[in-house]
């Protein structure tokens, strides 16, 4: 899609405090450069990341979402990421049924030692979302009330 070359995707990353947040920190202290499109939200664990938060970020204008935490068996709380993984499987299946673009949610495991993996993950996701273009379909539905109801003169 050549028309999207000047489109800068907005990406929200939901990360766990113990692995991916520390991993992203390592990317910075290692002076690795990566795309600046990502806004990081820190959570205590991937198990804490409510599925509705992912939808809320699309409604607020995100074009893509990254969800990342500790590798299996590395969870600070023993099994938080296993529970999260099950929830993602179910959530992906339901979103796909409803017609939400599941390619825009990227799941990953990034440990505290994988600073370069974090940089690659963000760069690849930004490239993917750039190719997909803005998530206008969802955002149109999200502003429904403002357009149709509250600001009639606008």
């Amino acid at each position, binding site marked *: 899609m050549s028309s999207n070359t000047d489109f800068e995707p907005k990406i929200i990353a939901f990360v766990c405090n113990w692995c991916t947040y520390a991993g992203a920190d390592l990317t910075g202290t290692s002076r690795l450069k990566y795309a600046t499109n990502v806004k990081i939200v820190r959570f205590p664990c991937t198990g804490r990341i409510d599925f*509705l938060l992912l939808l809320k970020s699309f409604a607020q204008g995100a074009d893509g979402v990254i969800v990342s935490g500790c590798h*299996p068996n590395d969870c600070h709380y023993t099994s938080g990421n*296993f529970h999260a993984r099950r929830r993602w499987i179910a959530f992906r*299946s*339901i979103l796909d*049924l*409803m017609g939400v673009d599941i390619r825009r949610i990227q799941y990953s495991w990034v440990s505290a030692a994988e600073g370069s993996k974090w940089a690659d993950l963000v760069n690849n996701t930004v490239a993917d979302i750039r190719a997909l273009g803005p998530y206008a379909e969802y955002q149109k539905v999200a502003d*429904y009330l403002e357009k149709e109801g509250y600001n009639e003169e606008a």
Partner: protein
Amino acid sequence: MKKLRDRAAELLSQGVVSLVIGYEEGTKRPRPLFCRNSEGAEKLIFDSHCFHNLAVYITKKELVGKERFAVTAPISTLRSIMQLYVENQLSEEKLLVITVDLSGELREFTTFDEIAAYVAQFELKRGEREQEILSKIEGMTREERWKFWMEEMSHCFKCYACRSACPLCYCSKCVVEVNRPQWINPWPAPLANMEWHINRAMHMVGRCTACGACGDACPVGIPVDLITRKMMEDLAPEFGYVPGQPAKQGNALSSWKLDDREQFIR
């Protein structure tokens, strides 16, 4: 029918149960009947049109009280009762389940093992309506599915009849009533409607027994039951349960396996 009325009257007059939840003739179709004496039991009916899921009442403490009670249950209600039991919402001492089997004989269940054995004979199949709509959805591209559901969701006016009709929606405080923060917007805009239905489906993962009560209750005819039904069918091989059978291995989202699928995780 005669056998059912006689037995219900007998149970009530002998004091075995204090309440029988069943069906009576309604204006268009059978409606729920709560009989507390033998005169009430005379109105009981039970036939193939009785598909209102009465399991929704048996978790309501203000209705059933502390005494033992009986409920008449077709096969879909029996499935819901089993699921409620594995979720520790029912006790065998309090509940007597009555059904009429295929040969027209009255059957009573006092233990949940008996119900499980009886339910296991019946395989959960898609009906004509489900097959028609689901095969249409399965043939769509993602964009078409989004359009289809947005069109359907635009009719929803958030009456929450789907929630009230569902026997497994028994939380005393529902996520839609949480307002700090306002988790799901209360107004009926397409996005808020879709968030609600996705939420409902997520809360039904591994639990829905596909009784169809939610879709039946919808006043504007959104096939909401098919969201959870399709989800159950798709996730069954993933989480190792059989749709329509109680999830004895534990709730799908509160248990996990080391080898859960993760090809989609980069």
